[in-house]
């Protein structure tokens, strides 16, 4: 397949792998965080981790949109879905995330009208097709998915659609990275930055990582060669003692991002004072809500939602997994009490979750010893 096979060439991978081994600074152990769950998934799906030289470890980061939604917000979603006359629309992955009183899929089996959509525009279309019903869209995700919600809101307003609201859970990528870099428990040598988020926000928002934390950053694409090349770029920076923001994903990402997408977000949403993240707790200025001008389309203003912060299941270590502190297989319940079909935590549910990636693709791997610092 054109534009795909070129980026999955085993031959080029072998060449890159040997360059990577040569580039490793002698005697050092390096830990690089792949921030995005899409990267985690690609790493296991293509077996990239098996091609890395000794002394180089990849650590999973918080960039999984489903994973970071805390239990309380899932409960709020279930409560909205159970409102009379509501059609509750969501991306498929979110349906299986357990709340404290079951998942959206459970709510559906109890009679709630929960429907999977592929885009918020589909939810808006559903509202127009069902004027006698109320359609709520469960908006989740980083800056990758935020613009599509923003555009949908602008269209809803332009078309005067009154029976459509958004339950906004959009989050931004920079604050959790800062929280992870500030945490004393983890030493990271560099970051593989998320490609699709960066297509929207550009590469500048990572400048603080290079300037304030002296860590190199490479914005990476999602094909296996993209990831391998990004790892090589990071290792070369580290070997040369550089800490810069570089862009490997030049075919998609511009330094300034996508101004029109950013403009749409700016028009419709604003930062919340604080937003709760699974595993990371409340982080100031890290989540978005709808602006006052869009109050009519804000599900949190139209309906009563419990809005209660609910602690994670006692046994669940998703929080530590999302912060890179615990590898999926080190979690006490991984693969036993927590499996993709009976997940306890979000990291096992989402196709981008580190636990699901490892469970589905990596169970043949010898358990690696974590680099402890």
């Amino acid at each position, binding site marked *: *397949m054109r534009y795909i096979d070129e980026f999955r060439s085993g031959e080029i991978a072998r060449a890159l792998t040997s360059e990577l081994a040569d580039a490793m600074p002698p005697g050092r152990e390096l830990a690089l965080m792949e921030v995005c769950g899409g990267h985690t998934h690609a790493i296991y799906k293509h077996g*990239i981790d098996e091609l890395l030289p000794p002394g180089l470890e990849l650590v999973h980061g918080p960039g999984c949109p*489903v994973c970071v939604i805390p239990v309380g917000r899932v409960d709020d979603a279930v409560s909205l879905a159970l409102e009379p006359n509501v059609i509750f629309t969501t991306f*498929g992955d979110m349906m*299986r995330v357990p709340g404290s009183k079951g998942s959206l*899929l459970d709510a559906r*089996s109890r009679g709630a009208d929960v429907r999977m959509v592929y885009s918020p525009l589909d939810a808006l279309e559903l509202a127009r097709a069902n004027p006698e019903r109320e359609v709520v869209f469960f908006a989740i995700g980083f800056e990758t998915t935020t613009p599509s919600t923003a555009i949908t809101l602008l269209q809803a307003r332009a078309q005067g659609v009154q029976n459509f609201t958004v339950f906004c859970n959009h989050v931004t990528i920079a604050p959790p990275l800062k929280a992870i870099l500030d945490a004393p428990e983890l030493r990271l040598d560099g970051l593989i930055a998320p490609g699709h988020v960066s297509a929207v926000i550009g590469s500048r928002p990572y400048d603080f990582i290079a300037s304030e934390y002296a860590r190199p950053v490479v914005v990476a694409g999602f094909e296996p060669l993209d990831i391998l090349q990004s790892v090589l770029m990071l290792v070369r920076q580290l070997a040369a003692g550089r800490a810069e923001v570089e862009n490997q994903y030049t075919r998609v990402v511009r330094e300034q991002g996508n101004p029109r997408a950013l403009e749409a977000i700016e028009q419709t949403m604003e930062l919340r004072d604080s937003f709760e993240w699974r595993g990371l707790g409340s982080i100031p200025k890290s989540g978005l809500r709808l602006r006052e001008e869009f109050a009519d389309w804000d599900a949190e203003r139209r309906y009563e939602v419990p809005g209660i912060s609910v602690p994670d299941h006692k046994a669940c270590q998703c929080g530590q997994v999302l912060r890179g502190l615990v590898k999926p297989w080190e979690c006490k319940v991984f693969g036993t009490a927590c499996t993709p079909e009976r997940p306890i935590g979000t990291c096992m549910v989402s196709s981008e979750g580190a636990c699901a990636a490892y469970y589905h693709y990596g169970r*043949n791997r010898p358990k690696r010893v974590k680099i402890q610092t």
Partner: protein
Amino acid sequence: MSNERRPRRKSRFHDERITLVHGAGGKASRNLVEAVFLEELANPLLDPLGDSALIEVGGTKLAFTTDAHVVQPLFFSGGDIGSLAVNGTVNDIAVAGARPIALSAAFVLEEGLPVADLRRVVASMAEAARQAGVVIAAGDTKVVERGRGDGLTVTTAAIGLVDDRVELGAEKVRAGDKVLVSGSLGDHGMAVMIARGNLELEVEISSDSASVFPLAESLFALGADLRWLRDPTRGGLATTLNELTEASGLCAVLEEKALPVHEQVAAACEILGLDPLYVANEGKLIAVVAADRAEEALALLRAQPLGAEAVIVGEIEPEPAGLVLLQTAFGGSRVVDMLTGDPLPRIC
């Protein structure tokens, strides 16, 4: 398959209500079957949970199976619920090592269903039956109120005559055996997903719905060197092979580069974030054969019109027990797990 003994563990099943996951053909479906159905209905014919039960009547070995068909939309590129019902049932008989003889079909019709649609479905069944060389020997019809029937559902049953040259089963499979597939993967599942019309993908993908009996029959000549046959429907090649490795305690290693996937299907899967290994097929055969007969088996399959694209995709190894592994084209390896839940397009 008749002799395929699954380790019967006490199933844990905590779900309080049926959700769609129970119908997706993966682990949840199997847990439901084991914990709810086998719990009450267990008997030597049912227990192996093969595609067909093997029954001996007066010295004659019969294969017996049943299948319920619900598909939305009822018509899609390359087939419809009628051809699907016939072929799916015929295929369950064929992979048991048997020649399909006769089918029954029970229809639940929803009030308001256009008779023209019903005619089209029945004509399609007749054509599929003719091609598969079976008759539809018995039937039943019920009508339910509007809103309670999903248009039309069909439940079929079939009997077939077991070919005495072969004895198939997971326990016949040996390390070193080769895994063959009769053609491209994922065509049916993608055709139906596209026909639902909400993906706005403009691709030409047709369902592969067809009887695999001619393919299966061509392999019966291998006798005991033909170890195991399946048609990888819901859950795709991945889930079907996992059932084999779990039942046999062996490992199947697939070569990613060898997997036959049509470009359109690969592209659609790529866009949606789906894996063709998990997408349903309705006219394909997976065969495990002794290594020294693998090339012969390949030639036999390729001599059939439906088997022109047949390939050897992997082999059976002793370890790691119970897993399906994939050697990636990129140079790494990974586990190919059973399907969990429905395959869902990714978010971003």
